[in-house]
């Protein structure tokens, strides 16, 4: 049985650890005692400067603001139908991650397939160098206000 000194030392150590993990956010504290947050968990808070919800990710180095999340949730690609999963797999292989717009679109399969087929057909070997297509696409994205 640890004595009182050891218990206090352990408590202080745990408190410091919790603070490091982002548990110092008052919203998630209960009764003044920091509640632990596992690394990788997603928290959210509203900042005074903004009316919208900003998402925070708890990392081993503290709390990091996530890129702003979309207004609606997309599907979990693991639960998508077989053919749709193949598209997600291909995109993941190309870009290293699932794309949020694609996950959202997948909620309405007709829109998803219109988008996926168009993307695939336009991405075929083209008469225009990819560099020039990229110049055009990036400038359009900038002009319309799409963060890439």
């Amino acid at each position, binding site marked *: 049985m640890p004595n009182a000194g050891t218990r206090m030392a352990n408590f202080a150590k745990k408190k410091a650890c919790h603070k490091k993990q982002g548990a110092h956010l008052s919203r998630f504290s209960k009764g003044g005692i920091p509640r632990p947050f596992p690394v990788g968990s997603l928290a959210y808070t509203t900042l005074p400067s903004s009316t919208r919800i900003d998402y925070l990710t708890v990392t081993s180095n503290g709390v990091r603001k996530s890129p702003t999340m*979309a207004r609606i949730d997309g599907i979990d690609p693991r639960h998508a139908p077989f053919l749709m999963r193949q598209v997600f797999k291909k995109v993941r292989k190309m870009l290293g991650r699932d794309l949020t*717009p694609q996950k959202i679109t997948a909620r309405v399969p007709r829109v998803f397939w219109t988008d996926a087929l168009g993307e695939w057909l336009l991405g075929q070997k083209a008469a*225009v160098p990819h560099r020039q297509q990229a110049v*055009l696409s990036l400038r*359009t994205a900038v*002009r319309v206000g799409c963060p*890439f």
Partner: protein
Amino acid sequence: MYGLSDDEIAVIRDGRLDGFAPPEAALLRMADAMADTPSNVSDELYAELRRHFSEEQLIELAAAAARENFRARYNRVFDVGSDGLYRKGLHFKQRTA
């Protein structure tokens, strides 16, 4: 990203044209024109584009720009943030056309 340097991407992002060859500068002006509302590509710009690209190439380029307009505007409805695909200094393997 497809052979574009960070500086070139910065020029694209700042709405400038400097540093790009005439065909690419014409494409940037085309992207600007297509992103405007109402969208209008002037006769001068079209003549300039035709000097550098065939009609088939322009069909592909117009489709690419229109598609990007679709995609970018679609994302605005749901306020989709960046998926973090581009980071300064990160270079993807260049694909050959």
